[in-house]
């Protein structure tokens, strides 16, 4: 969709909140809470959580932490500037049968949690939000305080306080609670570990990662296609880019191993999976060429 920037606000140091809408106004597609859009940000495509409650709206709100070339491009946007935005996608929706929602946010990972909290308030669903942040770097804090009241617990700065509170919270949630976590990989790892320790089945634990962890450039390898054709993939060039340079265009969106768009059948070879999309089971028969690679023995793809 071609949208325009409606307004820009400084959410906190390093974070800008953008409101996007149709050039002539009008409704945008609704989305489940915790949904995201992929925005074309210069030569990058970045995924940003939508912070609204997901109901019908004439604007989307996203909050952008400045950290890479794409987010720096986003920070230069002014009201009236056009932006290319995907339809909303959802991988992190609240579970309909849940009796209670335990929301865990670390830093800018608060954005999908704001969406969840807004929806929970709107639909009167029981919830509790634990928010860990560095003082002065807490996006959306005033609106969360007003929205959540005593359903917001804040952990400014103290990593140990936050960890102790998470451990305690995961041991006393009533049956029927689901937990949702978004934040740095270390926070997600901690919550997964503590939830498993407290006997949470994986079905109750829901995770939203920012992007696949940065990995090294990898070794060069060859990819074989069904036709027998071989395409070389140099070190530092993604499998997806190498295929594109060879004239083989695949559907792709986020190019960060998150969205699932470039999923390709894997026929043979030992893939080094770096995406956050495929399940363990799917990894024997599919690969996400935007981030995943192979060792020097190469791969055979269903192309």
């Amino acid at each position, binding site marked *: 969709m071609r949208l325009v920037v409606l307004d820009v606000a400084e959410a906190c140091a390093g974070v800008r909140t953008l409101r996007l809408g149709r050039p002539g106004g009008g409704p945008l597609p609704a989305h489940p809470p915790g949904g995201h859009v992929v925005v074309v940000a210069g030569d990058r495509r970045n995924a940003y959580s939508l912070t609204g409650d997901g109901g019908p709206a004439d604007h989307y709100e996203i909050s952008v932490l400045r950290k890479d070339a794409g987010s720096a491009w986003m920070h230069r946007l002014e009201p009236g500037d056009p932006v290319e935005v995907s339809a909303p996608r959802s991988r992190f929706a609240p579970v309909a049968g849940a009796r209670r929602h335990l929301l865990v946010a670390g830093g800018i990972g608060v954005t999908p949690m704001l969406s969840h909290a807004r929806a929970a308030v709107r639909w009167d669903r029981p919830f509790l939000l634990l928010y860990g942040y560095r003082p002065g770097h807490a996006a959306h804090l005033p609106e969360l305080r007003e929205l959540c009241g005593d359903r917001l617990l804040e952990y400014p700065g103290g990593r140990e306080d936050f960890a102790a509170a998470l451990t305690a919270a995961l041991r006393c949630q009533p049956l029927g*609670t689901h937990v949702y976590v978004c934040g740095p990989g270390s926070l997600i790892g901690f919550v997964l570990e503590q939830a498993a320790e407290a006997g949470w089945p994986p079905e109750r634990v829901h995770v939203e990662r920012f992007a696949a962890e940065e990995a090294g450039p990898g070794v060069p390898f060859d990819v074989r296609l069904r036709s027998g054709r071989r395409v070389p993939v140099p070190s530092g060039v993604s499998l997806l880019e190498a295929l594109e340079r060879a004239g083989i265009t695949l559907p792709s969106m986020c190019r960060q191993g998150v969205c699932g768009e470039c999923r390709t059948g894997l026929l043979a070879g030992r893939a080094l999976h770096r995406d956050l999309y495929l399940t363990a089971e799917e990894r024997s028969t599919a690969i996400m060429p935007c981030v995943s690679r192979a060792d020097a023995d190469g791969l055979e793809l269903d192309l």
Partner: protein
Amino acid sequence: MAIDRTSVPRWGPEPPGVDAAGRSFAIVSLGEAALPVAAAWAAEIAPGLPLRHVHAEVLDEALLARFGRELGRAVVGWRLMLAGPEDEVQVLRARAAEAGALPCEVRAHATATGALRVYCAHCRTTGRAAVEIGGVLPCTGCGADLVVHAHHSRRLAAYLGTRAHVETP
């Protein structure tokens, strides 16, 4: 006709094992035949983990009330083990699901499969009788002859019954 996918519960001959990931447990055993099953489960649960075992000969209102209080106290990490006649086990499982338990948090074993609970699609009464799928029983609510379908509701803990012979003039 072979049915690949069905809502009709299938019970294995052997009771399932205990979920070792659980951090607290409740065992409910109904009828004498369920006692050895419950004892084997209790022995399998790691010592030191909280375990409540309730035994009763039949599922009555008092037990349901007690079970409701147990569900109200349960925290995530809790696992439920049920042994007893199929229809009674299903009633408890439906209560647990209503309280928010996931299918993976409840393990059950049927010690007998003679009686079925049947929900009347017309008057919405649920009755219980020694009947098989395809069989006919009178509805305790409206008196209609109900044919039992191969369609089981986990929420209602009952099979679907509809008026027999309605399609024959």
